[in-house]
C-alpha cells in the first residue's frame, strides 16, 4: 500500500516544483507590470508638471489681460505680488500633485521589488515542498 503511494508522491513533488516555478514567473510578470506602472507615473508626473506650467502661464496671462482691462499697470508692485502669490499657489498645488505621483512611483517600485523577492521565495518554496514530498516517498518505498 505504502509502496503504491510512492509514485504519486513523486508526481506531487514534481507538481510542487512546477507550481513554484509558475508562481515565480507570475510574480516576475507582476513585478514588470509594477515597473511599467512606475515608469508611467513618472511620465505622468512630467506631463502634469508641464500642464501645471501651461496652466500657470495661462492664469498669469489672464491676470494680465484682466489688469489691462481694468486700466492698471502690469508691472506695479502689487502686480508683482499677485503674480508671485499665483506662482506660489500653483507651485503648492503642483508640488502636491508631484508628491502624490512620486509616492505612486515609490509604491510601484516597492511592489516590483517585493514581487521579485517573492519570485525567489516561490521557486525555493516549490523546491522545498518537492524535496519534502520526495523524502516522504522515499521513506514509504523502504
Amino acid at each position, binding site marked *: 500500500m505504502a509502496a503504491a503511494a510512492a509514485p504519486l508522491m513523486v508526481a506531487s513533488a514534481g507538481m510542487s516544483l512546477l507550481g513554484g516555478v509558475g508562481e515565480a514567473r507570475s510574480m516576475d510578470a507582476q513585478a514588470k507590470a509594477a515597473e511599467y506602472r512606475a515608469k508611467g507615473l513618472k511620465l505622468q508626473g512630467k506631463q502634469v*508638471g508641464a500642464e501645471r*506650467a501651461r496652466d500657470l502661464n495661462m492664469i498669469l496671462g489672464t491676470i494680465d489681460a484682466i*489688469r*489691462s482691462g*481694468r*486700466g*492698471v*499697470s*502690469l508691472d*506695479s*508692485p*502689487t*502686480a508683482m*505680488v*499677485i503674480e*508671485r*502669490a499665483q*506662482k506660489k499657489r500653483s*507651485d*503648492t498645488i*503642483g*508640488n502636491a500633485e*508631484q*508628491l502624490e505621483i*512620486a509616492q505612486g512611483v515609490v509604491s510601484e517600485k516597492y511592489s516590483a521589488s517585493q514581487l521579485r523577492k517573492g519570485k525567489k521565495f516561490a521557486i525555493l518554496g516549490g523546491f522545498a515542498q518537492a524535496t519534502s514530498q520526495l523524502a516522504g516517498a522515499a521513506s514509504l518505498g523502504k
Partner: protein
Amino acid sequence: MARRRRFQNAFTTGEVGPEFLQRAEEELQNESAQALRNVIIANAGGIRRRPGSVPKAKNTNGVKRRIEMFDLVGDEIRGLVMTDGQLDIYETDGTLEDTLVAPWGEADIDDIVHVNGDNRFYFFGDFFPQQLTYTNGVWTLADIDFESSIGSTISQPYWRFSATKGISLTPSALTGSITLTSSDDLFEAGHVGTRFRYIGNEILITAVTNATTATGTVITALYPTIDVTVASSAGFQVGEVVTGDTSGAEGVISSIPDGTSLIVTLSFGYTYFADTETLDGPSASTTVSGAPSAATAAASVIWDEQMISSVRGYPRAGVLHRNRLIIAGFPQAPNAVAASATGFENDFDLGQAEDADAFIEALGDDQNATIRHLISSEQLVLLTDRACYYVPESENSPLTPTRVSFNRIGPDGASTVRPLLTPEGVVFVDNAGRLLVIGATGSVRASWAVQELSLFSNHLLTGPKSLTYVDGLGNRSERYVIVLNEDATAVAVAYRRGAEQVGVSLWTPAEGFDWLSIAAWKTRMFCIQGDYFAEFDMDATMDLELPYTAAATLLAGESVYVARSGIVWQGPLAVNGSGLIPTVAVAAGQTIGKDFRTSIIPSPPVAKQFGYERRRISRLWTDMLESGPYRVDGELVNTHDEDDDLEAPPPLRSGASEPFFILGYDPNSMPEISQEVGEGAPFFLRSLTMEIAY
C-alpha cells in the same frame, strides 16, 4: 414811443458773461444779470447782500497764509493757519491754542493737500508727509511714522522708479554693513537714511561714496546666491527664473559658468535647491547633482527703494477712503497710487495681496498722466492732469488689492486747484479754468459723468486758487461753492439741489483786506482776510466787523466805518491803539468794520421776435425785503419816513418802491442798483420791474 415792462423776480442764473447777453433763453433773459457784485443769490431767486466777516485773531507771520478747518470730534473744530514754516492752531473764537514748527515754506502753502482723519490730520506737499495729532490736549506735527514690521523692517511704500530701470545692484555681503554697487549712476547724498530693498530685503543706506557706490546696513538678511551643479545647464538663460520641483526654492539665474553649473540668486527664500531634485526653468529642466554651495552675492535688477524721499520727492495728494490712507502725486511716479492696509493708515506692507493688505498700483492706460487729486466719494475718484477716473467698488465688491480698477470717466484734465466733494459730486477746476462737476449717473457701466458748471459765468473765474463748499451759512438754506481767485476776488456759486444750472455772483473784499484763504466746516465759513483770521457772518454788514460796544483792540490802527443797527453811519475813522475811535463813543448796537460796495446790473432786455430795437430803460421799480438804504442808478433811497427821527438809523423796509426814473438816452445803458462804500446796509432785492421805451 411805445413802452413795455419786464418783470424779473429770479436771478438764479446769476451774472452771465458779456457773450451771453444777447441770448433770449428763459434762464438767460429773465433769470440772469449783467453784474452781481458782493451779493448772494437766494434760493427764493432774489438777491441779498453778501455776508460780512468777523475778525477773530490777527496773524502776521509771513505774507502767505492759508486756513483749513480741523474737524476734531463732535462739533469741536479748530482753525489751522498755515504760514511760513509754521502752523497756528486756533479755536473758533480766535484763541491761539498752539503754534507748531512746520516743514513748509511760503511757496508750498497754496499747494498743500490736507486730509482730515479721526483726531489726526495729514498734510501733503513738497515735504515729507506730515501727521498732525491731537492727544489729551497736546498737538504734535511730525513726519508720518510708517509701521515697523518683523525684523525692524518699515512698512512704507517702495517703488522701482523708471529712471533706474535696467540698473543692477550688487551687495558685498548678505548681512551687516555692506557695500552696494550699482551698474550705473544711482546714489545721491540724499539717499543716506533711506532704505533700498534687494530682492525684497531691506538695506538702510548709511553713506554714499559716489553715484555707483553706497554703504548700507542690512536690515533683514539678503537672499543668498548659490552655485548649483546640474546634469546640464544647456537651454537655460541668464535672468530666467528656476524652481526646484520638490524644495519649491526659486531663484534667478545670474550666470552660467559652464555646462554643468548655474549661479542662482535665490528669491524670496533662503532654502537651497535639494540634491537630485529637478530644476525647472521656462525652457529647460535639469537635475541637481550635488548639494548647492554659497557663492558671491550676484548683481540683481530685482530691487526697489522707498517711494517717499528727498531724492524721489514727496506725494502731493492724499485721501482717507474705506479705512485706507491713499496717497498719490509722487513726482517720479506720477501715475502711481499707494493705499495703506485696511484700518492701518501707516502700514503699506503689500503682504500677499490679501483683501486687507496695502496695495500700490499705477494707471495702466496712461503712463504719463500725473495724478493730481484723490477724492473719497461713494467710490474713489482720481483726477489727473489729462483725465478723470473712478475706482469701481460696492459693498459686494469692496476695494481690495486684486480688485483695483481705474475706469476713465472722461478726458477732462484737472488743474492743481484742490477739488471739492459736494452732495452732487466732485467739483473741480479743469486745465482750461472751467468749473466742472463729476456726478454719479446711476448707471452701472458709466457710473460717473462730467458736467460744466461755469458755462455762463466763466469770465468770473480769473485764476481759481481754491474751492470751498458751505451749506446753510447763517442758518439760511442756500448752498454755495466759493471759488477764490488769485486776484483775491471770490466767486459765489449758488448751488441749488436739483437745479441744472448754478447761479454765480462775484465777491470783492473790502479794499486793502484781500482774502488769502477761505475754508468751511458744515454751516460755518472762515477766512484769512488781510492779517486776520475771520469768520463770515450773514449778520455782519461789513468785512472785519466787530461790536463797538467796548474798545475793539483787535482793529487797533485800522481805518473803519461805524454802523448802527447794521447800517453804516459814518467813516472812515481811525481806531487808536486802545481800540477806540476818539470821535465816536462806544454804544449799544454799534459796530465798526470795513465797508464794501455792492452792485446789481440787470441783463439788457432782448426781444427775440423783433431783433434790434432802439430802446432804453425809462423807469424801474424794486421790491425789497427788510432792506436799508441803497441807490438806483445813482439815486439814494433813504428808508427814513418823513416823520422818522432822522438822527436814528434808518429803519429796514419791505415792499415795492416808487418808480425810479432812469435818465439818459444811451440804448446800451442799464440801470445799476448799488450800495456804495460808506452806505452799507442790509439788502434783499426780491424783484425788479423795468419799463422799456422803444
